[in-house]
């Protein structure tokens, strides 16, 4: 998994509450067997018109937001169906992080497992960012310092679970964490008379 330490990039506003995972990545795209290629389908029903063209009204189709890497959304982002494809699609579109006043629990956890940072800030702070955003507006998210800032003097400190922070800073998902104990696992397996897992894959 990629590390997340600090990131500076253009912010895009998605000023609606309860953005659910069906809206983030509709179900007809969940049948792929790969973990890649979801970017073009992000927010599909909002992003495209029924004839398949781009919907010019949708924020991510507007100049200055197309290249955004930080999404700033209304409350309760990521609600609904448990699907890891939601953080995948956001990442593969180009987003590195999403800022909201609250996240649905499952989406929140899935994001960390995929190196995608959900930043939780008080609702009035998210509102302030939404008011500041214009095409090309950039934010910096410094995970080490737990700080969101812009070049105009805006700064907001965010809370994050220390363990989650450690995992992102070091690029560790659950598998990566487990593999840190690979030597112990191998020793245990030897003691139990099992073939080490690593040798089964060769």
């Amino acid at each position, binding site marked *: 998994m990629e590390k997340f330490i600090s990131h500076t990039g253009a912010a895009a506003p998605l000023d*609606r*509450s309860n953005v*659910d995972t*069906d*809206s983030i990545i*509709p179900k007809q795209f*969940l049948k792929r067997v790969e973990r890649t290629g979801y970017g073009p389908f992000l927010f599909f029903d909002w992003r495209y018109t029924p004839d398949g063209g781009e919907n010019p009204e949708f924020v991510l189709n507007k100049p200055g937001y197309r290249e955004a890497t930080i999404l700033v959304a209304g409350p309760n982002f990521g*609600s609904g*169906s448990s699907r890891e494809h939601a953080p995948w699609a956001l990442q593969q579109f180009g987003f590195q992080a999403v800022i909201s006043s609250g996240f649905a629990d499952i989406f929140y956890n899935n994001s960390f497992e995929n190196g995608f940072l959900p930043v939780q800030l008080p609702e009035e702070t998210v509102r302030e960012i939404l008011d500041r955003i214009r095409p090309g507006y950039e934010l910096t998210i410094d995970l080490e310092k737990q700080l969101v800032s812009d070049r105009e003097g805006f700064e907001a400190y965010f809370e994050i679970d220390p363990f989650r922070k450690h995992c992102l800073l070091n690029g560790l998902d659950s598998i990566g964490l487990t593999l840190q104990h690979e030597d112990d696992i191998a020793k245990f397996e030897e003691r139990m008379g099992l073939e080490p897992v690593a040798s089964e894959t060769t």
Partner: protein
Amino acid sequence: MEVRVDGELPPGVTAKDIILGIIGKIGTSGGAGYVIEYTGEAIRALSMEGRMTVCNMSIEGGARAGMIAPDETTFEWLRGRKFVPQGEEYDEAVERWKELATDEGAEYDEVVVLDAGELRPHVTWGTNPEQVVTIEDSVPDPAALPVDKREAAERALAYMGLEAGTSIKDIEIDRVFIGSCTNSRLADLRAAADMVRGRQVHPNVSAMVVPGSALVKWQAEKEGLDAVFTEAGFEWRAAGCSMCLGMNPDILMPQERCASTSNRNFEGRQGKDGRTHLVSPQMAAAAAIAGRFVDIRDWEAAPA
């Protein structure tokens, strides 16, 4: 987080109405950061199927999971089932399971209390499960809602093609979906069949029943429920997720309006621009017959 439902459910009010009522009260993020334990007399009185419906939709209330302490209802439901310990081992297991319940006097981080006697059949009007009212109500006026709910409500009404002030009973529907992990267990299908027996699906409505599992389908067919539905004009389908999320071709056409027993009414969930109203199986079945939402408490017993 404890959600306690005191008292007794009125007739025609189901487990689905309990959980929709809870989500209407706490909101779709009200359970965020919690696992919900459901307690109280009305929860104790539910069948296992009803308890599963309630727990299933904990996610819609923002919680990680939902649970209900095991009791005689649980043990009876488990007895003799495949993969459950049998004979003496079963009795020993029950003794262990009895210890799983929350300690008397345990403190919860959050407590929410509802009075079951106050609950009514519920119908969602919007595009998330907290946008819900009872069958006695009308589509709410966004201006009358708390400030932070207004914009989402206006967006939802536009998507749903509804006007504030419309009585829920005046909303006409095109499709009915009785299915999903939330509400297509055997007890759900029996209750829905009781509403449609000897009646006919409204000519403007296309209705389908999709059993929750192959086992439920088999049991239902053994009881003849499939015939009750097909004679009334429902499609009787193979078990699966079907139009809960429309990963297969079972989808709503744009602007089609559906009474659905599933758990999610998000934009596009059942098909792009499709309009989903979440209800109990009984409410969905009655709506299929009437062509609009009806108060099942006024629904006369089916002709024999």
